[in-house]
C-alpha cells in the first residue's frame, strides 16, 4: 500500500530553486532516505510532507489524500517529526515533552502517562530517573532519544526525521542508530529520513533519493545507486566510500554463482562446531569480518562456510571470496 506520494514538487526561494520537479513514492512500512550534499533541498523536501513548507507547485498525498485537504496542525499530529537540534521544549520535563502530541490529540491522561513510561523505558531512559528531568539536564544522546520518544508517542504511522543523529559524536551516533534500527516500535513505520551521511543512508534505507541542487539524481534501492549510478554525480558522490559500501551492500547470495561449482559439501561433514556456517544473506563485509577471526589451520587458508541449501555448505577463503566479489560487482554493474 502506498503511504506517501509526492508529485512534481517545486519550491523557489526568491530566484533560488530549492526543489525542482521532484516526485517519489513510499510504500507503507518502508524507509526512504533523502540523501545529498548540504543545500541540495532535502530538508525543504521533507518539510513539504508535513506542510512546514508549502510547495510552489506539485502535490503531496498521504494515504492517497492530498495534504491540503486538512489543517496543517491536524496533518502534523498524525506524523512523527524529529530534527537534528531535537528542539525539546526547555520548560517542559522529559515526560511532558513526550506527552505533547497525545495531549493535543485529547488522549486520556492515564493512557498518556502509561504510554510515556513505556516509551521512555524502551528507549533506555528509565522513567523513575528521567521523567521529571528537564532537557538541559540530559546529554545530547539522551535528548535525541527523548525527541524520538516524543515523535513516537501518539504512535503515528509515518515518521519524518531530519538528520536525527547529525548532532551526536560518532560513537553515540553509531550506538543510537543501532538502537533505532532495532526498535520494534519502528518496524511497522513508514519513514522518510534526511541525511548527508552515506553510511547512515545505506544502513537504514529501503530506497534512497539522491538529490543535488534541488533535482533528483537517482531514486532506487541502495545497491542500485551503488552498482548502477545514473550519472557522474551519483558516481562521484559514492566514490570515496565505494568499496566499503559495496562490501556492505552485496550479500553472499550475490557472489555464490561466481564460485566454482565443484566444492559442495554435506553440512553433516562439518565437524568443528565453532565454525558454524553463515547464511547466504550475510554481507561480504560481515563474511570478511568472520574470516579475520578464524584461526589459520595447520595446512591451507582460513576458511568459513556458507550454507547454500538445506543440507549443503560451501567453503570460502579470502582468495575465493574476493575473486567472486570482484566478478559479481562487474556482472551487476553490467545489468546482469
Amino acid at each position: 500500500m502506498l503511504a506517501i506520494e509526492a508529485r512534481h514538487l517545486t519550491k523557489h526561494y526568491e530566484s533560488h530553486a530549492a526543489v525542482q520537479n521532484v516526485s517519489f513514492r513510499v510504500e507503507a512500512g518502508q524507509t526512504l532516505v533523502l540523501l545529498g550534499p548540504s543545500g541540495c533541498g532535502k530538508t525543504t523536501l521533507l518539510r513539504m510532507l508535513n506542510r512546514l513548507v508549502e510547495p510552489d507547485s506539485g502535490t503531496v498525498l498521504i494515504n492517497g489524500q492530498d495534504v491540503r485537504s486538512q489543517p496543517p496542525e491536524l496533518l502534523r499530529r498524525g506524523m512523527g517529526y524529529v530534527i537534528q537540534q531535537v528542539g525539546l521544549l526547555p520548560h517542559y520535563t522529559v515526560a511532558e515533552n513526550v506527552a505533547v502530541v497525545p495531549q493535543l490529540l485529547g488522549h486520556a491522561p492515564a493512557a498518556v502517562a502509561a504510554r510515556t513510561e513505556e516509551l521512555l523505558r524502551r528507549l533506555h531512559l528509565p522513567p523513575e530517573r528521567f521523567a521529571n528531568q528537564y532537557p538541559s539536564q540530559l546529554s545530547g544522546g539522551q535528548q535525541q532519544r527523548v525527541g524520538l520518544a516524543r515523535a513516537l508517542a501518539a504512535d503515528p504511522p509515518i515518521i519524518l526525521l531530519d538528520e536525527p543523529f547529525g548532532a551526536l559524536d560518532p560513537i553515540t551516533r553509531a550506538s543510537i542508530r543501532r538502537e533505532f534500527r532495532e526498535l520494534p516500535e519502528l518496524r511497522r513505520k513508514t519513514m522518510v529520513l534526511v541525511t548527508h551521511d552515506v553510511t547512515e543512508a545505506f544502513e537504514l534505507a529501503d530506497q534512497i533519493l539522491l538529490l543535488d541542487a534541488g533535482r533528483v539524481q537517482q531514486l532506487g534501492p541502495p545497491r542500485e545507486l551503488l552498482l548502477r549510478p545514473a550519472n557522474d554525480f551519483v558516481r562521484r558522490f559514492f566514490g570515496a566510500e565505494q568499496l566499503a559500501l559495496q562490501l556492505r551492500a552485496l550479500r553472499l547470495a550475490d557472489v555464490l554463482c561466481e564460485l566454482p561449482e565443484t566444492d559442495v559439501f554435506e553440512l553433516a561433514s562439518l565437524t568443528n562446531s565453532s565454525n558454524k556456517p553463515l547464511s547466504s544473506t550475510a554481507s561480504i563485509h560481515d563474511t570478511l569480518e568472520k574470516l579475520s577471526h578464524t584461526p589459520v589451520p595447520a595446512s591451507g587458508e582460513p576458511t568459513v562456510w556458507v550454507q547454500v541449501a538445506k543440507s549443503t555448505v560451501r567453503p570460502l577463503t579470502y582468495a575465493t571470496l574476493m575473486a567472486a566479489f570482484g566478478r559479481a560487482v562487474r556482472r551487476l554493474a553490467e545489468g546482469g
Partner: protein
Amino acid sequence: MTILTELFAFWQAQADKLGQQILQHIGLTAASLLAGVMVGVPLGLLLTRRPRLAPWVLGGAGVLQTIPSIALLGFLIPVMGIGPGPAIVALFLYSLLPIVRNTLAGVQGVDAAVVDAARGLGLTDGQVLRRVELPLALPVLLAGIRTAAVINVGVATLAAYVAAGGLGEFIFGGIALNNPAMILAGAVPAAVLALLFDGALAGLQHLRGRRLVWAGRALLLALPLLAGLYLLPRATSKLLAGFSPEFVGRADGLPGLRQLYGLNPASVVLAPALVYEAVRSGDVDLIDGYSTDGRIRAYDLRVLHDDRHAFPPYQAVPVVRRQTLQAHPELAPALARLAGQLSDSVMTELNYRVDIRHETPRAVAHDFLRRRGLWREPQPATGATIRLGSKIFGEQYILAEMYAALIKGYTNLQVEAKTGLGGTSICADALRTGAIDLYPEYTGTGLLVVLQPSAAVLDSLGPDPAAVLAYVRREYRRRYQLEWLAPLGFNNTYALLMRRQQAEQLGIRTVSELSKYLR
C-alpha cells in the same frame, strides 16, 4: 544632620500627605505600566509575526522616548487637559519602547529549533505562542517591564505638574522654595519605590519554568489592583483649587491664607504655567496667580480682594545706583514721570497685550507713553550711557522699554538695555557691582529674597505697603548704596483667582467671602 532632622520633622508633619502621595505615585506607575503591558506585549507579538513593521514601530516608540518628559506632558495638555489622564498617557508612552522591544527580542530569542519542533508536532500558531514562545520569552519580557517600571516611577514625579498628584508635589514645592528637606521628602520615597519595583520584578525574572508563568499571571493581576490605589477617595469641597507648588509651600502663600482666613479648599498641585489654563478650562475653580498677569484679562478671571492682607505687598519700584543718580541729576526726574502711572488693571492690560496678543514690549510701552502724554521724541544722545536691566518676563520688558524711552526723550543720556536677567539675585548682584544702573523691582521680593530679615522684623512690618517700602529703601541705602524711587502704582503680588462668571454667580468678591462660602 540638620537636614535629616528637618526631613523627619517634615514627614511627621505631612504624614497624611506623604501617604496619599505614595499611594497616588504607585497608582500612576501601575496604571501606566498596565496600559503599557496591555498594548506593548500584543504589539511586540504582532511584530514577531510581521517583522517588516518592526523598524517602524520601534523607531516610533524610540522617538517618543527621546521627547523630554516635560515636553511630552506639554503636548498632551492641549488635547487632554490636566489631571491623571495626560500623566498616565505620558507614562504609558514612555513604557512602550522597553516593553515592545523586549517582547520582540524575547520571542525572537527563543531557539528556532524549539519553535520548529513545536510546529512540526502539530501545535497551532496560537499554541506555539502561548505554550512555547511566550513562556520562553518571559524573562526578557519581564526585564522590559522592569525597565519601564523604573523609568515610570521616576517620570511619575512630573505628574505633580499636571495636577495628578504623586511624590512630585513635595519635590517641586521644595525646588520652588529652595527647601532641600522638602525635595528629599518626595525624592527619597520615590527612589525607594523605584528600588522596590525593580527588586520585585528582578525576583520574578529569575524564577524558572512553571513558577515564572505563574509570576507573570500574578503580575497581570497585581497591576490593576495597584493602579486602583489611585482611585482611593480623597478630600472634596464645593470648589476645587489648583495651586502651584511654591504657593502651597510658602509661608505667605496657602499656609498664610489658611491661618488668616481659615481657608482650606480641596486642592491639587500643578505647574505654575498651567494654573491659568486649568481654571479657564474648568478643571479647577480657584487658582493662585499674580495680580497683574495678562491672562487675568484674557481668560476673564476675577482677582479676589485680599481683604485681610494675607499676601505681602509687592509694589513695583525702580531701583537705581546712588552713584548714577548723583552723576546724572537729570535722570531722577525723567524716571519719576512714570511714578503712580500704572494701576493693577492698567498693568494687567499691558501684560495682556504682550503675553497674549504677542505685541512687542516696545510698541506697547511707547503706545502707553503716548496715550499718557509722556512721549517725547528722543533727544540727541551726547551724554553717558545708562545700563538698564530687567528680569526675564513680559512685565519687566515693558517697564524697561518705558524707562528707555523716557531717558532718551527727557535727557541726553544714552541707554543700553541688559534685559532678560535670569532672576532676582542676578539682577541685585548686577546692580550692586555696577553691571547695570537700574531695574524695576518689587518691594516684597527685595525684602524676602535680597534682605532676608528675621521673622521678628517681618512680623513688625506686617502687610503695610508703606512700611515695607520704607524698610527696603532704608536697608538698600545702608547696605548697598542703592535707591528705591517712587512706586509705579501697581502691586504685583499673589492673588487668588476665579472665573468671573462663577465668582459672580456665587457672589464672591473677596477671600473672606470665598472662605465663608467654602465653610
